[in-house]
């Protein structure tokens, strides 16, 4: 982030899609295909995480969701025609490079999501060894039968 | 000084289970001494009549817990402190048959302090505080017997009271926000500058708060706790559910109406009509239920419901005369109802009979009790020469004078209720004295009047009923002065 409040040069796609107010929706959508894709992916992931009963599928949904956000960040962080901020040939103008922070955020996010996934998986294993199923509803049923 | 009268009963109550009394009489003497002492202190305080405010604690902002003696609190505190020693005396005898005496006397005495707290509160918040406390300290008394019935009754009592307080609380908020102060000032504290345009909302909240406090005063849709709470030992039902607790509700409404919202603001609005209609309905409803009820104490409880609404009727007339009449009935009804409750208690204690149909022919075996019961019945009906007539007369006069057609309808309600009162009270008397030609007197063999501990309070209350009926002028004058703020 080199100048104080540099905005990325395009608007966000999902909001336009949802609102339906913008007149020039078509061009915006096309121009923002990256954001659109990430938003769709996010929704898919979110729905999976929420609605799947199978734990593994839930975790996959979680990962799709997180990845969608990283895609979004990466998309936002890339400006066509610029390169990664690694000074190789002595060009120091800020206009030549992209902002490195989004990429950094993606990395941090990946770490977080990996750890969360690991935790979820371990929990899943526990449940599986106990109840021999991955279906959360079924586990609930069994728990009710246990009566505790 | 003023805080002392509240604290003494609290400490006494807590000491009861703590001190290891060797004999029962020691405990009795201890309690009675403390209660009498406290009552004397209260009367001393009232007669000395210092109007200074005693500040106990600050809450937030200008909200504080403070106490003050003014006219209305003199009436209520005086009433409570006059009745309590007798009720305690009566309780000693009554409780010989019950268990967990210590717990009983603990809360019984605590209630004394808390009720005085309500009476002497100087502002709405303090009163609200003690009002909530009152609920809490009386619940153990209701569930004293720990039968399933008692537990259910106490639960209901608790829900109703706390729920009511929740809505009364809204009234408190309104006074805090739209008033100049929360202190009680005759004529109300609402600030016209702050109200502008919000009159209807305020009125709505007034009605809610009225109903909220009305829960304790057993106003119609919220009265079913009172008859149920009759499972408590009789001293409790007599003192608390005929006087202290329910009158606290009425007292709170007096405070709310005359001292917080102010009659100028309320009079002639739809809110007045609404509350008056509710009160009138309750008057009739309570009596009708009493007529149908066959359990003695529950019948009296319904009678209380109706009579409380007499008081409230006086209150919602919203004139000084109305307030004076309400105070008159507050005091007189207390004496009458406690008298009839004690009779009922004596009957139950002596014969273990609980239903009206079982009372046949007892009149000749327990002439004192039933004679006194008859007198209290006449008084409740409003036979001239007894206390009830005076208070009804005052109520009716206030209603007539207010020139409010709805209030005139209220007079009709009062009279219909008087008739119903005659029905439900006199059927008991008639049964007791005229059991029918073929009545087998062997059935009532062994029943006899109770001992002096129970009879003395009865006679004293009877004397008061007659005294108030014949020489009410001084006390009514005092109430009138209170109602215009001269006391």
């Amino acid at each position, binding site marked *: 982030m080199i100048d104080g409040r540099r905005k990325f040069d395009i608007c966000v796609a999902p909001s336009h899609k949802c609102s339906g107010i913008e007149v020039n929706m078509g061009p915006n959508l096309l121009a923002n295909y990256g954001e659109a894709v990430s938003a769709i992916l996010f929704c898919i992931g979110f729905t999976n995480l929420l609605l799947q009963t199978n734990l593994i599928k839930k975790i996959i949904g979680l990962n799709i969701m997180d990845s969608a956000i990283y895609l979004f960040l990466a998309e936002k962080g890339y400006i066509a025609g610029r390169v990664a901020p690694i000074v190789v040939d002595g060009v120091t103008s800020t206009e030549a490079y992209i902002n490195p922070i989004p990429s950094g955020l993606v990395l941090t996010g990946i770490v977080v999501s990996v750890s969360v996934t690991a935790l979820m998986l371990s929990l899943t294993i526990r449940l599986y060894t106990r109840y021999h199923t991955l279906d959360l509803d079924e586990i609930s049923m069994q728990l009710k039968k246990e009566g505790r | 000084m003023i805080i002392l009268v509240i604290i003494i009963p609290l400490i006494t109550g807590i000491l009861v289970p703590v001190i290891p009394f060797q004999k029962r009489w020691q405990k009795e003497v201890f309690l009675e001494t403390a209660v009498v002492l406290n009552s004397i202190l209260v009367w001393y305080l009232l007669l000395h009549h210092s109007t200074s405010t005693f500040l106990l604690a600050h809450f937030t902002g200008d909200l504080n817990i403070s106490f003050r003696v003014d006219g209305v609190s003199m009436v209520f505190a005086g009433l409570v402190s006059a009745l309590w020693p007798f009720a305690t005396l009566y309780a000693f005898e009554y409780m010989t048959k019950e268990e967990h005496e210590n717990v009983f006397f603990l809360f019984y005495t605590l209630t004394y302090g808390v009720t005085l707290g309500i009476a002497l509160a100087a502002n709405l918040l303090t009163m609200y505080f003690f009002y909530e406390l009152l609920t809490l300290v009386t619940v153990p008394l209701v569930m004293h017997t720990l039968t399933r019935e008692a537990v259910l009754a106490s639960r209901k009592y608790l829900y109703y009271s706390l729920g009511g307080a929740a809505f009364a609380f809204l009234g408190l908020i309104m006074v805090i926000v739209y008033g100049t102060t929360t202190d009680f000032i005759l004529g109300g504290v609402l600030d016209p500058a702050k109200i502008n345009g919000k009159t209807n909302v305020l009125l709505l909240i007034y009605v809610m708060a009225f109903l909220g406090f009305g829960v304790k005063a057993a106003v119609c849709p919220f009265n079913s706790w009172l008859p149920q709470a009759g499972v408590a030992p009789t001293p409790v039902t007599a003192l608390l559910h005929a006087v202290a607790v329910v009158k606290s509700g009425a007292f709170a409404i007096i405070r709310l109406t005359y001292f917080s919202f102010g009659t100028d603001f309320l009079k002639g609005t739809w809110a007045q009509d609404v509350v008056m209609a509710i009160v009138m309905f309750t008057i009739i409803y309570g009596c009708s239920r009493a007529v149908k009820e066959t359990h003695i104490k529950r019948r009296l409880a319904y009678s209380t419901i109706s009579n409380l609404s007499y008081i409230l009727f006086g209150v919602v007339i919203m004139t000084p005369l109305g307030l004076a009449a309400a105070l008159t009935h507050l005091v007189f009804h207390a004496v009458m109802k406690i008298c009839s409750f004690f009779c009922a208690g004596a009957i139950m204690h002596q014969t273990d009979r609980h239903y009206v149909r079982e009372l046949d022919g007892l009149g000749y075996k327990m002439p004192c009790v039933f004679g006194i019961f008859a007198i209290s019945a006449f008084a409740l009906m409003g036979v001239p020469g007894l206390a009830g007539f005076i208070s009804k007369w005052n109520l009716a006069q206030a209603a007539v004078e207010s020139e409010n057609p709805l209030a005139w309808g209220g007079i009709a309600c009062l009279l219909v209720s008087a008739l119903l009162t005659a029905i439900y009270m006199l059927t008991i008397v*008639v049964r007791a004295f*005229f059991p029918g030609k073929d009545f087998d007197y062997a059935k009532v063999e062994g029943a006899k009047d109770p001992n002096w501990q129970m009879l003395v309070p009865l006679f004293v209350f009877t004397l008061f009923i007659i005294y108030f009926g014949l020489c009410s002028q001084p006390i009514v004058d005092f109430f009138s002065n209170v109602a215009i703020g001269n006391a």
Partner: protein
Amino acid sequence: MYCILLSIFFPILAGLFLLIRFRTPLAGEKKNEDRKKLLLLTGTFLVTTALLTAAALLTATERFTLFYLTETLPIYFKIDTTGTLFSLLAMIVVLCAGFFSFEYMKHEEREGRYYGFYLIVFGVLNALCFAGNLITFYLFFELLTLSSMPLVLHCGTKEAVMAGLKYLFYSLCGAYAGLFGIYFLYQYTDTLTFFHGSLYVTAIAEHGGFLLLIAFIMILGFGVKAGMFPMHAWLPTAHPVAPAPASALLSAMIVKAGVLAIIRVTHFFGDDFLQGTWVQTAWICLTLVTIFMGSLLAYREPILKKRLAYSTVSQLSYILFGLAVMNEEAYIGSVLQVLAHGFVKAALFLCAGAFIYKTGKTRVDELRGIGREMPLTLWCWTIASLGLIGIPPTGGFISKWYLAIGSLKSNIPVLGVLGPIILLVSALLTAGYLLPITVRGFFPGADYDRNPLEKKEPGKLMTVPILILTTLSVLIGLFPDSVAFIWH
């Protein structure tokens, strides 16, 4: 002052004394002794009270306040002509019925209670007659209801108790309606003392319509005690179950308390205020309905005492009719009717009591041939009946004459004429329900087996009161002027 107070409170205290002294039923070996003592005491008390009352009446102009209930509510007594008349009637009826009971009540239980309340009623009746303002009147009106109830339910059967309660609740209901009015009157007058037309002029101007309503409610309310339609139902229930002397007292005097109340109330409002208003019209209508209906019901009623009760309903409304018409003749007619009916009905009830006491027969058709058994009683009955029907020279004739004259003289359209007609019809009906007893009693018919009949004339204690009352009922017809002075 002391005479008045004594005439009121002496019997009340004496009654209480009897109640406490004889609270347990008379029984055992000393039963007769105790009973004698009781009767002696009661007799003494009754006579003393009567003397006291007479003394009080002689000091007629006295008026005084006993004490103040509240500053503005005095308990106030004064004796006026109306009060005097009622009090005289009460005294005579109470004495006669009282001595009659000495014999009649012999077989009842708990006589102590009966005489105790009897005396209390006497005192309360006196107080009612001497009451000088509405509050005092109301006070004793309530007490009258309460103290007379035990007389009604004295014999203690289930029916009697229920009847007693019914009586109580009807009366209270009426009294409360009256109280409703009093509440309002108090607001529109200086004092509740009985004056003619004491309402504020301004109040009449401002609240005229409402005050009329109040007046109507009060009339209806006190009319309950006087058995006015539509609240008359307690009378036929209460009378048959009560002991005969109690019925006599009830029918002759206690219901008159309602009449007295209405006299007081209408005076209080003033004739000018009520005349020509809808209240008067409605009131007259009600009384006429009651007169006709009462007679008709009595005509159809097979049980003797019940028949008499309906007759009371009807006859009382004669009085009320006279009051409702509101002019001098009608008023005199009413007052005469009060006295005449009082004596007659007391006599009739005592006769009925004598029949029941001696033969145990309660139904009219069982009384065939009674003239053979109890000729004296039946003669009295016959004379009294004539009085009730209104055959000259009995009191009933005079009173009805005045009533009819008053009614015709008044300018009330339709009703003024209709009234006398209904009076006539009712008189016919009265003849129809009373005379058959005489006729059958003396002439049971050819096929009637007279052999088992024997003389059963009751004792002197019973016959003398009946005779006195019968005589009085005739005398009043002969010397009506003695009471005609009361207008103004």
